[in-house]
């Protein structure tokens, strides 16, 4: 029983990080109908920047702030300079463009900081509160940070003007434009916010995977899987998908073998999709052009 509880706690902690990445992917999908493969590369890059801050003596919080700020900037820059060009064309082309960007970011990080994985500090200690219950202050911080961010985004979209404009720009751009919404600017903001959430995820998971150009590949795969499980159109689905995936991976790792976790992810994914082909929370009808 204790083992099950411990595995569930570990699953929830890891799952929150996947939820954050999934949330970033969902935000971008809702705004521009593109699967952003470069998300993993973007959060890797911002985590490297945070690591540089730590290396030069900065505190954990300063580094976190640096990561979030650089995420905002990076997301905006990528949308404005690159994605704007491929937004209208065949969807696969946009996918390949983000793939090219991912490769460029990995190569760039390798050139600047080298390829050796580096250790990254956790927010608080990783030693559990008690000997038997494997929950540590660091784990609680991860869960809390993602939850707060998700709630903040929810409030932004539902309760503020900017949020309304962003939703309008995503779902009915022509009409929104007629009503005076700067659609382009809203899309840029959407990408910037998504990159911010991704950067948070990167800093949160860095202590376990170490910081290196290729260390975040699994985060991308699991984040994408979580987004698909929850339904690409639903931010709530992203959170739910992340938690479901995190727990599934933890149980596979604990009861079967940690060598086949991704296969476990595939099994979880296929199970959900066979029952609901558009994800768990695929309520509304998708846009068809």
């Amino acid at each position, binding site marked *: 029983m204790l083992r099950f509880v411990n595995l569930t706690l570990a699953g929830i902690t890891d799952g929150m990080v996947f939820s954050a990445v999934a949330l970033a992917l969902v935000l971008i999908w809702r705004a521009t109908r593109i699967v952003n493969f470069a998300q993993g590369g973007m959060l890797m890059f911002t985590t490297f920047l945070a690591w540089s801050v*730590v290396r030069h003596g900065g505190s954990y919080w300063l580094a976190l702030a640096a990561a979030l700020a650089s995420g905002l900037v990076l997301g905006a820059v990528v949308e404005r300079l690159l994605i704007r060009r491929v937004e209208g064309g065949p969807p696969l082309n946009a996918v390949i463009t983000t793939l090219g960007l991912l490769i460029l970011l990995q190569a760039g990080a390798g050139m600047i900081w*080298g390829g*050796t*994985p580096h*250790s990254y*500090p*956790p927010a608080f200690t990783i030693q559990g509160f008690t000997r038997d219950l494997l929950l540590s202050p660091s784990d609680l911080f991860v869960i809390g940070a993602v939850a707060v961010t998700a709630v903040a985004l929810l409030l932004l979209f539902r309760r503020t003007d900017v949020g309304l404009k962003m939703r309008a720009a995503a779902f009915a751009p022509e009409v929104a434009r007629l009503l005076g919404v700067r659609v382009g600017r809203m899309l840029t903001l959407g990408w910037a916010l998504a990159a911010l959430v991704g950067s948070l995820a990167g800093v949160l998971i860095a*202590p376990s*995977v170490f910081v290196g150009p290729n260390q975040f590949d699994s985060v991308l795969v699991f984040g994408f899987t979580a987004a698909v499980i929850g339904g690409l159109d639903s931010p709530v689905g992203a959170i739910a998908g992340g938690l479901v995936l995190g727990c599934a991976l933890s149980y596979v790792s604990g009861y079967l073998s*940690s060598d086949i976790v991704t296969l476990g992810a595939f099994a979880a994914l296929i199970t959900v999709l066979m029952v609901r082909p558009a994800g768990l929370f695929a309520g509304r009808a998708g846009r068809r052009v």
Partner: protein
Amino acid sequence: MIKRMIAGLAALSLALAGCGSGDDSGGGKNKASAPGITATTVTIGSHQPLTGPAAPGYSEISPASKAYFDYVNAGGGINGRKIVYKYVDDVYNPTTTVDVVHRLVLQDKVFAIFNGLGTPTHTKVVDYLNAQRVPDLFVASGCGCWDQAAKHPYTFGWQIDYVREGKILGQYIKQNFAGKKIAYFYQNDDFGQDGVKGLDMYIPKEQVVKRESYQPTNTDVSPQVQAIAAAKADVVVLFSIPAFTALFRLASLKLGFKPQLAVSNVGSDPTTLSGLLENFAKKGGTKVQGNPLIQGIITDAYGAPAGDTSNSWIKLFRKVHDTYIPKLPFDGNVVYGMGAAYTFVQALKAAGKNPTRRGLVDAVEKGGFTGAGLVPFAYSKSSHAGYSGAQIGKISGNTIVLSGTPLTTDAGTGAIQPYTTPQPAAPANGIPPG
């Protein structure tokens, strides 16, 4: 449409043929009889984990070797030839190693492969290199697979092999931890399995309560550590690369599990481990030097530890390091890289004025090399194994402190003997004599 395809194919053929023949003629570089040898240069190649899970620590080895070669080149080289060292990243991925080595042999046409790193990686290219008759010197791995003179005549080991090391560690644990519970944590390939074979020759089976293995591609070792903690082991022997020694220590920290650790020399470099663990060590107000998470780890060494500043070899390597690679930390990996490079220079010198590939191999088989080691090499016509023993030590502060005497043994069931000949001093000019 047909015409377009013909035109396309023709253009492509010309382009590729142009590139291909360009490579084949080699631009007129290879004038001497052996590939990779010219009148003024000797080109050697290597595959190294410069990125990826094995990069922490190991990525310093090849720049260190290159630094020593630069030092020798600055003094005029060997027989008037400068050594050109081409080391390529294989990310510790056997598939990439195959690719990289094919390129080094077929396109770069290196004279020899030097210090190819990794057991799972190098085992994939050893057949190819021997079939192509390329000298495969001083493989950076302790697998017993390099010691097969009949099957792989061109391949030679350098460091102590894992069976020998397992025996020496196993004997120390048996003598000092009688009656305690022992657990193994090892890489699930020839590296770890050979180590376990050696350990089992000395540690009684009843004492071993758990054997857990890991794959270098899977950084989640908490299931294995939890299993070992549940078995309440007092001592855990690790045959792991530095990243996984660190991961084990982190996972055990999370569980509050504090066994005595004994780690193979390939995974125990204090500077590397500190770097990997620095953000997790408690920053207490103690005046103790070095990372508190790794103090007291038992390990072994076949050369002077990097922190032994009075040793003549360490002084020599420190000088080369400070001149050519000052930005890298001075640790066991740098000492390793330079030590291996020193042995290669010895072999090249012994191969004569106009070295051939076969000549280089014969020179190593003739044996008699002495270098930075505390124990002798085992090179002969029938044995291609490197260092034949090691000395037990413990991590204290930022370095390893050796205890007892150097011990030698064989890779089979032979006994472990003390080796009493003292380590020879480093040559004054840093270049092998003779």
